[in-house]
């Protein structure tokens, strides 16, 4: 099952993968790179951080609108 070697992905690569996942699209080559290099734990942590960043940026946007 885990035949592929998991090399460590850089934080930037994880962030990029999660960013594209929020949009819901991904280039095939990039995705294949993700599939072999990203570890589930990295993706989950980055996903949670990404969700927090999204919420904070929405809050900031809202703050600008109503102030």
């Amino acid at each position, binding site marked *: 099952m885990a035949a592929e070697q998991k090399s460590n992905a850089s934080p930037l690569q994880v962030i990029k993968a999660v960013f594209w996942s929020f949009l819901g699209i991904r280039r095939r080559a990039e995705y294949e790179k993700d599939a072999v290099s990203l570890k589930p734990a990295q993706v989950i942590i980055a996903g949670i951080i990404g969700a927090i960043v999204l919420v904070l940026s929405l809050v900031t946007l*809202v703050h600008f609108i109503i102030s």
Partner: protein
Amino acid sequence: MQAAHDHAAHAHGHDAHAHHPSGIMRWVQTTNHKDIGTLYLIFSLTMFFIGGILAFGIRAELFQPGLQFWRPDFFNELTTMHGLIMVFGAIMPAFVGFANWQIPMMIGAPDMAFARMNNWSFWLLPPAALLLITSFFVPGGAPAAGWTIYAPLSTQMGPGMDLGIFALHIMGASSIMGSINIVTTILNMRAPGMTLMKMPLFVWTWLITAYLLIAVMPVLAGAITMVLTDRHFGTNFFNAAGGGDPVMFQHIFWFFGHPEVYIMILPAFGIVSQVIPAFARKPLFGYASMVYATSSIAILSFIVWAHHMFTTGMPAAGQLFFMFSTMLIAVPTGVKVFNWIATMWKGSMTFETPMLFAVGFILVFSMGGFTGLILAITPVDIQLQDTYYVVAHFHYVLVAGSLFAIFAGTYFWLPKWTGHMYDETLGKWHFWLSLVFFNVTFFPMHFLGLAGMPRRIPDYAMQFADFNMIASIGAFGFGLSQLLFVLGVVKCARGGGVKAPDKPWEGADTLEWTLSSPPPYHSFETPPVVK
């Protein structure tokens, strides 16, 4: 490989599970994923018809203005129980039934990871359903606070509400156990070479749905437990006079309730993503983006709950936040719809019944999605809150979305499950009657809502009469059309019709089609190797 499967199908001698009891005890004691899947599907179909009969009661009353058949409080029981039964009794168990049948076969596993727990998760459901239905016969009748069981209505009702609460607790426990089973099966029991990113999309959507279920079912349990203690043990969680806050119930409920919406639609996305490539004879366009979009929808589903509560009074900042976050969900959902259409683009398409339902799904579900986007706009929602527009919206996503996908999946996999082809003519009649009557029923509800007709009322003003009459005629037509579905399934299950080949759909390429039709009792005793 096929020879090996055939051998497995005939040689059950050394298989401990082959010594299963016969008759009713086979079903009570079964730990086999296919038997349990069948039980889930039969349970779901039964509840679908019970919920449907309640809907008949609703539409009969609304056929004309004035009170025809029911006391107003019984009408409220009908709407509430219709919602609860359809959501927790019909749609959710149907998808778990699909998961049980399909996930082990699609990932090349012999069975689910926790076979005994699987039996337990199913057999919790009939007692829960019995509690729910019994509530009609206790003093004060069934729960009548709407399927959302908002406090303070739910803290004031008779013992029927307690039965409803216990039923939801039990169904929630069943869902959590089912989900743990699904997650464990997917993560640990895949065939060699079946990496996560090679899994069929149905398996992916169920993996994400299972996580959602594990995350939010305890939240529902918490909310209804608080209602229960408010009712009987002197707490004041939702009682303003005792320092509580009824609006808090809505926050907690919808923190469960919005992900619940996606729990009911993500497996539908998965089914459609299997059916469309098979009948377009092309691989799914943008597989990776489908996986990413599903994850994205799941994450976003946790930050939008208060769009159900715009009229409860919230600061402008809150309204804007929930409006923006809700609208963002249109992006990954749009990606999915685009990918399905791109899959069909220049494909060699044929329109057998599963494909008809899948294409119908895309068309009608998208309409439900668009009305959702309209309702996401706070000032619009404040006008349309609790009107028939909302009823139209969520029936477009739940009936034309989830239910149509369930039909698509059933017709798609019925030849595999039963070993016999369904009756194509009957299937097509079922589709076209369902599609037409669905729209006759629910499209006029948009107009009713825009004109201001409130939901959950047994009587209405004269200006709403015509559209209500149309909707009622449509509803009866839709309900009766479902008898064709039962007829088709029963004919197939009893062995009527042509014998199904192992792979009746030439474009289908997932592992279950490498098995015989019907598949052996244990799917893959020797795991296949996926390249």
